[in-house]
């Protein structure tokens, strides 16, 4: 890749790895290369690094170390959680929402093909899930409820603690996809009362290809990957020691700096939106009142998100759209479709990060205003 200057505003897709995380990983990518399952002391060094990482992560989310299972990322964590939840009882019903990530929706669909009764809640216009929506669908035969904590496209926060309490009333297991929440908002699994939680390292400054799944002690677990006894028998395969260590370091830093980061991103959001207002750009902010700071989903009426994204791309500004081009038509993302956004075609997501500066958001806001307000662009001069 050419070393061109750019502005990265797609942190909800992935974050740059923190230098401290990378530094922590290096020994396990070089001289400390032993297999953690080896019985010698060299192997034990790697094992100890994994155990330390497990303890760190457990402490951060309010869990016990034996409740933290390392995975290859968020998708695997979600797949595992749903399969465990479905296998844990003979009950038929699985409840999720249509605004979930594909790694949840596709797994639920697969469980449906195996005879489960799958129910999809309709989210609010923000993409959050209301307690009422869940109450209406809960039944005594509900085995599992899986709802995301922070919507990846709009940043909407769902009331997980209250939703979980409702699920518990009918004896269902509760899983939450917290991939956009962990490292960004405080999380205590015991306070939330949940049974399972998924997370992915590269969303909070860790490396790609690693994540973790919290499974409450006592939950009946069934492995998805068979082989050695790694990850307490739930996930066989030699552990990715370096990535696990990097994830734990990144999460430790992310949670230690959470308040400063929140203030930083709030300030950037305010600057960005006030710049759009100053430039008289007509837009709608999605995600509702309860939203994770740093994920800005905005819709521009009669606009085309892909056009905006491509123009910005050419300027070296990287954002994402909620719609993907499919030939002449646009395939609006299932999230925007499920929340019924009429303006979905003109919806873009700007997601901020630790390294985002005030100058970045000002430049982006001015560029967007130029693209959106530039009426002559469609016409020949």
């Amino acid at each position, binding site marked *: 890749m050419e070393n061109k200057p750019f502005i990265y505003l797609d942190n909800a897709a992935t974050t740059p790895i923190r230098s401290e995380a990378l530094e922590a990983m290096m020994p396990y990518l070089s001289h400390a290369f032993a297999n953690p399952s080896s019985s010698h002391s060299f192997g034990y060094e790697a094992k100890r690094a994994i155990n330390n990482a497990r303890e760190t992560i457990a402490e951060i989310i309010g869990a016990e170390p034996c409740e933290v299972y390392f995975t290859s990322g968020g998708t695997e964590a979600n797949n595992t959680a749903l399969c465990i939840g479905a296998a844990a009882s003979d009950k038929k019903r699985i409840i999720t929402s249509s605004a979930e990530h594909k790694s949840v929706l596709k797994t639920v669909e697969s469980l449906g093909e195996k005879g489960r009764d799958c129910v999809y809640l309709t989210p609010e216009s923000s993409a959050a899930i209301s307690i009422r929506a869940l109450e209406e669908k809960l039944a005594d035969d509900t085995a599992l409820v899986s709802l995301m904590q922070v919507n990846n496209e709009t940043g909407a926060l769902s009331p997980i603690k209250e939703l979980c309490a409702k699920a518990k009333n009918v004896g269902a297991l509760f899983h939450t996809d917290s991939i956009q929440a962990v490292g960004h908002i405080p999380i205590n699994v015991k306070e939330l009362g949940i049974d399972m939680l998924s997370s992915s390292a590269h969303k909070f400054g860790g490396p790609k290809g690693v994540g973790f799944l919290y499974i409450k002690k006592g939950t009946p677990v069934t492995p998805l990957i068979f082989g050695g006894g790694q990850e307490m028998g739930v996930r066989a395969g030699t552990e990715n020691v370096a990535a696990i260590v990097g994830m734990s370091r990144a999460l430790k830093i992310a949670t230690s700096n959470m308040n400063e980061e929140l203030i930083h991103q709030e300030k950037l959001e305010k600057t960005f939106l006030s710049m759009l207002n100053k430039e008289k750009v007509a837009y709608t902010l999605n995600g509702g009142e309860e939203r994770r700071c740093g994920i800005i989903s905005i819709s521009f009426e009669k606009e*085309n998100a892909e056009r905006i994204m*491509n*123009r910005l791309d*050419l300027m070296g500004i990287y954002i994402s759209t909620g719609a993907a081009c499919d*030939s002449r038509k646009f395939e609006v993302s299932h999230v925007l479709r499920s929340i019924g956004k009429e303006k979905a075609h003109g919806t873009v997501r700007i997601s901020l990060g630790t390294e985002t500066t005030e100058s970045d958001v000002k430049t982006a806001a001015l560029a967007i205003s130029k693209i959106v307000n530039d009426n002559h*662009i*469609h*016409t020949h*001069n």
Partner: protein
Amino acid sequence: MGRKCVVCEKYLTPEDRVITKKILGFDTQFFYCTDCLSTHIDCNVTDLYLKIEQLKQEGCFCFEEERAYLLEAAMYGE
């Protein structure tokens, strides 16, 4: 309409039409050759060619559609 660049009147390629749509919107009435488009939106022409390459690599269907459109337009002398 849309077989020639609105600026230099050069005959357009499917690539020209696709990149115009991707940059100006699918509802655009005015099509540019890639060189004139880069001038029109004030960007580096190499970046536009890279974007075309990226779209092709990603399997964008638009190129086939534009090729068919241009063939048909040529046949009927539009």
